[in-house]
């Protein structure tokens, strides 16, 4: 297989708080190949967004601290890049769609102004960055996300658009100039299920058409199942299971994945499962050994003392001593 577009190696991210360092990410490994659609699944507070924000280096400055780890974009470490190189990655390499479209768009500028800026700073040649060309690109992008009447939309302020439309605009901004990798942070979560379905279909279609890679952050296993080729399951700052999507759902291995899957209410009925005992740990004093052990029904002594690493079982990796 070709070299990965993005490779995260042993990433640790800590947040400085009043009570000390909050050790959120604890050695995350992840990679994405060209044209691949990868899902990053986990519950609220497990570090999904922190991982992806560190890729673009948009973590809150002064609070976040990265003691260890590498984020390689085509082999170059993003964490060591100079501002100019970083800007190139941000404007030409990787784009991101955020969870809350209302917060991602600036309310005091029109959609057009914001889109034109994205295009202007994406390193076009002088010829290409003429005003009419920029407008042409913007209109084309809005058409690609199936919004009718793009000319009018360009003159709208974000508050004049519905939630679904705003999220489409965010997608349009992310794809308006060619990018290699798209990071989507729960793009459908704040939307209704029918609109979410529209946004997801749109996203998948665009990614496939343009041959981009996609990292889809979501808390919903169902969404990941419909959209991705490969899934990383994350718990408390660790990747606990990695598998091809079909393998993961056919044969989930990690106790956390199993718990999560059984907690999802099913259309087939049959009641609601017990859920997972306890809650996500306090990152100021994370449990030793496997971070899942206080909640794990299968924990033994070794789980408390030693941190399990990802074991490869024929393409299906899992970090658990009991598997």
């Amino acid at each position, binding site marked *: 297989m070709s070299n990965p577009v993005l490779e995260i190696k042993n990433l640790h991210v800590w947040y400085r708080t009043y009570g000390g360092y909050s050790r959120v990410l604890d050695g995350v490994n992840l990679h994405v190949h060209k044209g691949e659609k990868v899902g990053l699944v986990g*519950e*609220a507070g497990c570090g999904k967004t922190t991982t992806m924000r560190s890729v673009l280096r948009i973590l809150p400055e002064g609070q976040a601290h990265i003691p260890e780890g590498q984020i390689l974009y085509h082999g170059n470490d993003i964490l060591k890049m100079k501002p100019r190189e970083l800007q190139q990655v941000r404007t030409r390499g990787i784009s991101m769609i955020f969870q809350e479209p209302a917060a991602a768009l600036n309310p005091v500028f029109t959609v057009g102004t914001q889109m034109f800026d994205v295009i202007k700073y994406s390193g076009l040649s002088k010829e290409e960055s003429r005003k009419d060309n920029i407008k042409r690109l913007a209109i084309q992008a809005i058409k690609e996300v199936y919004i009718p009447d793009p000319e009018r939309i360009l003159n709208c302020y974000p508050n004049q658009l*519905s939630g*679904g*439309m705003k999220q489409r605009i965010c997608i349009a901004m992310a794809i308006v100039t060619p990018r290699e990798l798209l990071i989507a942070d729960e793009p459908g979560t704040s939307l*209704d*299920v*029918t*609109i*979410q*379905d*529209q946004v*997801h279909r749109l996203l998948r279609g665009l990614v496939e058409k343009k041959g981009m890679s996609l990292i889809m952050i979501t*808390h*919903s*296993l*169902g*969404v990941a*199942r*419909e959209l991705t080729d490969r899934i990383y399951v994350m718990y408390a700052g660790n990747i606990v299971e990695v598998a091809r999507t079909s393998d993961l*759902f056919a044969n989930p291995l990690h106790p956390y994945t199993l*718990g*999560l*899957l*059984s*907690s*999802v*209410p*099913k*259309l*087939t*009925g*049959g*009641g*609601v*499962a*017990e*859920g*997972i005992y306890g*809650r996500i740990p306090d990152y100021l004093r994370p449990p030793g050994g496997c971070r899942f052990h206080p909640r794990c029904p299968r924990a033994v002594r070794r789980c408390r003392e030693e941190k399990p690493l990802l074991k490869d079982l024929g393409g299906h990796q899992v970090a658990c001593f009991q598997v």
Partner: protein
Amino acid sequence: MNAPIMTINNLKMYFPVQKSKGKPVYVKAVDGVDLTIHKGEIMGLVGESGSGKSTLAYTVMGMYKPTGGQIIFQGRDISMSSDKRPLSLKKDLQIVFQDPGSSLNPSHNIRQILELPLRVHKIVKREEMERKIAQILQMVELSPNYMYKSPASMGGGERQMVSIARALATDPTFIILDEPTSALDVSIQAKIINMLLKLQQEKQLTYLFITHDLSLMRNIATRVAIMYLGKICEMADTVEFFRNPLHPYTRMLLSSIPVVSEEEEALKPEKVISTGEIPSPVNVPPGCSFHLRCPEKTELCFREDPVMLEVSPGHLVRCHAYQKTAGVHVA
């Protein structure tokens, strides 16, 4: 089936928003809802945001005075606003809100939060307060140590447990659950749902469960109603509802749900490509309010609003496609 505990007749709740040419313009948040809820039932009310499901709940609770229609609860008309309702009635009717972060007073501790309903309804004497609160906390499986914690120091799941405890404090017969778990993770949702089901069994409660999650309703509701733009468009017993969804909107909703297994995939109706968005309730389209998004619309749908029709016992649908053929499903 048990006797009805609550009957809602042609309930309307309009909000004036602005004036156009001297005439006020209304948002028709709830526009003619008929609903009967039986004792001991879990009625699932499902709809997208803006469909009016929360307004319906708040109107039933008396937070708004309805524009029209009638709410009958335990044989008494309660279509007045909350301040005119008898106290004994309020005790029997409680609500749990969606976001426990904003529905619990952050400057009060759990004891103060749970004490209020007990004091208002004079349920226990002052000396017994502490014991009673501990007992209420026990019902939602929280230890008495929580009494002096503040809501901010608790996780989202625990906070929601406190909201549920507060609703239970007055020993109600009917609880409205307004998306109690949609702000929570699935593993915590599962715990809360199980607890709600257990309490319902133990205390013979009736729930009106408002949600946008159809898969959840499949597992816990006895009946399901779908709401769209202030009106109910389909209602049936849960099993029948999921086996034979009739309204095009219901089928669109069902086919949009992301699921986690092949068996579930097989249960979804044939893919109805979801198009368009819920229109603004200020400008409700004429005719059937769903016709803009409907894949099966006919010319009739533009002109005439369909009426509710019972296609089989207990299965009601409001769609022109079933008016002519009454009872036979033609897809």
